[in-house]
């Protein structure tokens, strides 16, 4: 036994104990809750036991989370998880991100929201508590099983977050594991630089809160099918569905904001598989919520309502499977490789089977074969809209699942080479339909609507939308028919909802949650169309050198080279690469954006400083910098920078020299100036160089260097022949200001026409250029405002549904 120094083993042991306790109590809670709802819907002793164990489970889980935070905060690198995801140099504000970077931490985050929601439901679910909490406890048991880290017959169940660094399988044979003082020199692996961003502190908890909230309608739906209470569950589940729409929508959009702010793919949405798999459950939850609305009074499409409600949560598990199992592998930039694929598949399949079982055992009879909704009724068109949403979700899921399809059917399809145009070709037409439906469906009445008054009432919005769309298409030169149609339909959605909000709700924010949410969605679509559809690349390569190798495609000139001090035209700006600053592990490149005033002088508009985050272990990460105006963003990022020799000493070192054959009158371009070979001087004396003592003959080359700003420097490299000793010297002569030195390279023959010259520049000269990209996103603020408005609208409607339910309960009690 080795006596290791400085390890804090107690915390981990308590943590492991709490995992076991939390796991067991979630199973007990499930069993007791199940028992209780087998008996009756009223409170009984089984239910009390269920509650008790769910609370024990909750407290134990909070303890696990607290301990892991404590270990990360105290840099306890004796624990693998802490070592893997954090380091002592990491700023405290990113400790939260370390916590959920790994698979175990993100599982705990999800389970955390389930205990929050579960405990609220214990208080509020009333007669539904038994069934709903059975489902909640079962999900928690699956989560906790992923933290167990035990072996049953050589099969690993779960991965323990408290495993010690020296006991981790990756470290077993490494020498440090037998050094009792290893903690003195172990430093953490650190957090992925991409995650060191404030959005990554708030985006994961929000997305997981959204994921967790899809479980509430799921649990209500299962209980309803189980207890054959096909109708009254909607009233209870509805507020949760719209709360989920709001919070999951917020989380997804925060992910987009993170991509826009911190990733360099130049946009907020790239149809990346991980993005897609969080979007799809949201789309289905929106569809499910709307079906609940039209079925709360009349059970016309109850089977579909159940199906979509159950599907939303199943898609959340599927999404976790895609991102955590590593199956996306080569197709996604940000998938985690270290998952537990087997356990995730069991988790997924279990709930699919559960849903199928209840849906077909008890729900089959709900398929309505006779009655049909009237064509001009609200419920009919809401139903059509949910179908459009389902198609949208189906298409995204299908294309995102290519690696899964390959795994199941043994095919070898690769994901679409151009994902953006692939997804857009489907999603743009569907979005046109959705925005149009959003614009007109709420003017319809339930049951039956007269057509003529309807047309009259939406005419102003249609006319306004046509005018706005034509105007915008003209200003931004949008020429694609589908985009023009989308422009119209999104304007129509906006105007029509504003109109409805004023005419029908009389501007009451409290009542108009749905209208506000729809208005926000319209703005979101409009904003993404205007900004992503009309992104203007201003960093066009204007140099004459442009090698086209491919005649089918236009030359790619989105990138531009900037030499330090240069001013380059990027319509409508002139951009100067001012300076490079190194602060800690960040290398900033200051770019001044200038405009010409009436007298032809440069006037500075603003400075952008895109930067590169240096990270030896995980690779350097370039991050953009953006200037926000109310109606456009100017976005820049570095696509290439020389990051070698960044420290000051090596900056001052000379690189290897180039030897050039030159003639008098030649000029040579170097990084910061033009070198002109003026003349050959035959009789130079000691006034030119100290080595020219007696008995030595000097041959000099008069060189002038002119910088781009017009400064000139003179210098004279020499060939010095020592006649007495029969030796030749070629000393370096330097222009210090320019960081360049020369030496006369010809030593054998005295040729006056052609001379060999050696030129060397300092490292700092060569590193003084970057390749950058500058994009203008017009009206991107419409998108962000739309997001906020939509989320607020969803929360308002969730709140309204809670109020509605309370009123109803009160009436019933009277």
């Amino acid at each position, binding site marked *: 036994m080795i006596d290791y120094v400085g390890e804090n083993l107690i915390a981990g042991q308590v943590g492991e104990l709490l995992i076991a306790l939390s796991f067991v109590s979630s199973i007990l809670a499930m069993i007791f809750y199940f028992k209780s709802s087998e008996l009756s819907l009223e409170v009984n002793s089984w239910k009390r036991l269920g509650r008790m164990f769910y609370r024990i489970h909750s407290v134990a889980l909070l303890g696990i989370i607290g301990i892991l935070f404590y270990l990360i905060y105290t840099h306890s690198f004796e624990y693998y998880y802490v070592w893997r995801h954090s380091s002592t140099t990491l700023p405290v504000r990113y400790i939260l991100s370390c916590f959920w970077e790994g698979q175990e931490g993100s599982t705990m985050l999800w389970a955390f929201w389930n205990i929050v929601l579960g405990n609220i439901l214990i208080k509020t679910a009333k007669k539904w508590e038994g069934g709903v909490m059975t489902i909640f406890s079962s999900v928690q048991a699956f989560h906790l099983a992923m933290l167990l880290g035990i072996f049953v017959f050589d099969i690993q169940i779960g991965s323990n977050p408290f495993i010690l660094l020296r006991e981790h399988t990756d470290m077993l044979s490494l020498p440090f594991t037998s050094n009792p003082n290893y903690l003195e020199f172990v430093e953490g692996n650190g957090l992925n630089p991409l995650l060191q961003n404030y959005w990554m502190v708030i985006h994961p908890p929000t997305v997981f809160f959204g994921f967790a909230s899809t479980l509430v309608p799921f649990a209500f739906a299962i209980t309803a099918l189980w207890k054959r209470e096909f109708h009254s569950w909607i009233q209870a589940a509805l507020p949760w569905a719209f709360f989920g729409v709001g919070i999951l929508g917020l989380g997804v959009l925060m992910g987009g904001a993170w991509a826009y702010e911190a990733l360099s793919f130049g946009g907020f949405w790239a149809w990346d598989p991980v993005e897609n798999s969080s979007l799809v459950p949201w789309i289905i939850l929106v569809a499910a919520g709307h079906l609940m609305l039209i079925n709360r009074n009349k059970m016309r499409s109850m089977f579909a309502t159940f199906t979509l409600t159950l599907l939303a949560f199943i898609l959340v598990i599927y999404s976790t499977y895609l991102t955590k199992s590593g199956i996306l592998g*080569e197709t996604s930039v*940000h998938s985690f490789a270290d998952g537990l694929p087997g356990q995730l598949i069991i988790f997924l399949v279990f709930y699919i089977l559960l849903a199928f079982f209840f849906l077909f055992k008890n729900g089959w009879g709900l398929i309505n074969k006779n009655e049909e909704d009237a064509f001009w009724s609200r419920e009919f068109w809401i139903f059509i809209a949910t179908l459009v949403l389902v*198609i949208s979700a189906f298409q995204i899921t299908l294309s995102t699942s290519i690696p899964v399809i390959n795994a199941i059917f043994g095919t070898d399809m690769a994901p679409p080479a151009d994902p953006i145009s692939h997804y857009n070709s489907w999603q743009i037409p569907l979005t046109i339909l959705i925005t149009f439906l959003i614009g007109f469906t709420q003017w319809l009445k339930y049951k039956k609507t007269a057509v003529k008054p309807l047309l009259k009432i939406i005419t102003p919005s249609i006319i306004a939308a046509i005018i706005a769309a034509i105007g915008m298409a003209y200003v931004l030169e949008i020429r694609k028919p589908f985009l023009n149609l989308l422009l119209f339909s999104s304007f129509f959605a906006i105007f029509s909802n504003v109109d409805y909000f004023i005419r029908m709700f009389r501007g009451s924010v409290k009542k108009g949650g749905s209208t506000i949410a729809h208005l926000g969605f319209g703005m979101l679509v409009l904003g993404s169309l205007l900004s992503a559809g009309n992104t203007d690349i201003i960093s066009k390569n204007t140099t004459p050198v442009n090698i086209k190798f491919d005649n089918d495609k236009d030359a790619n000139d*989105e990138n531009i080279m900037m030499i330090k001090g240069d001013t380059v035209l990027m319509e409508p700006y002139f951009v100067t690469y001012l300076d490079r600053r190194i602060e800690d592990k960040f290398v900033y490149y200051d770019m001044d954006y200038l405009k010409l005033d009436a007298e032809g002088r440069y006037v500075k508009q603003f400075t952008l400083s895109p930067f590169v985050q240096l990270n030896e272990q995980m690779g350097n990460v370039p991050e953009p910098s953006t200037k926000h105006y109310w109606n456009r963003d100017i976005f820049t990022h570095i696509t290439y920078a020389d990051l070698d020799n960044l420290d000051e000493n090596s900056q001052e070192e000379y690189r290897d020299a180039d030897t050039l054959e030159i003639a008098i009158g030649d000029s040579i371009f170097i990084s910061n100036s033009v070198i002109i070979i003026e003349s050959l001087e035959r009789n130079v004396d000691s006034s030119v160089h100290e080595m020219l003592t007696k008995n030595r003959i000097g041959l000099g080359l008069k060189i002038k260097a002119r910088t781009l700003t017009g400064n000139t420097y003179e210098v004279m490299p020499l060939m010095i022949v020592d006649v007495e000793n029969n030796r030749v010297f070629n000393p370096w002569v330097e222009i210090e200001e320019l960081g360049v030195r020369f030496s006369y390279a010809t030593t054998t023959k005295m040729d006056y026409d052609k001379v060999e010259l050696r030129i060397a520049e300092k490292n700092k000269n060569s590193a003084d250029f970057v390749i950058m990209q500058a994009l203008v996103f017009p009206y991107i603020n419409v998108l962000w405002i739309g997001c906020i408005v939509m989320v607020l609208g969803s929360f308002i409607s969730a709140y309204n549904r809670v109020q509605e339910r309370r009123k109803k309960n009160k009436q019933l009690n009277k």
Partner: protein
Amino acid sequence: MKKAHIIGIVLIAIAIGAIISTVSDAATYADFSKAEQLEGREIQVVGTLNKEKDIIYNPKENANQFSFFMLDNNGVERKVVFNGAKPQDFERSEQVVITGTAKGDQFHADKILMKCPSKYNDGHADGLTEITAESNL
């Protein structure tokens, strides 16, 4: 015919359309020799960078052209040309996945995905970082 039937038929038609579009837009995994048989088609090739040969990138001449030699999983070597800036740390890459088309004896990539080993735990598969670069179309 009832509305439900019409809706059902439309739905099935759209679903089939989505499946066909996914299959037809999907690129194909292949090696260089297959890519050359299918010249002009979008292909994904998985392989490694040949570190013995030069990686050519002269941003001062053209910031948007970058080329290197890559070995596919059968060991066949081709010159790969990419219209875009060289991804950071490209030299360190352990595995490269390129998407593009074969043109004569060259491969024109419009997307590069690479995996780099992280320095601390060299050789462990979970220490990979992935970087993508898109050509600027």
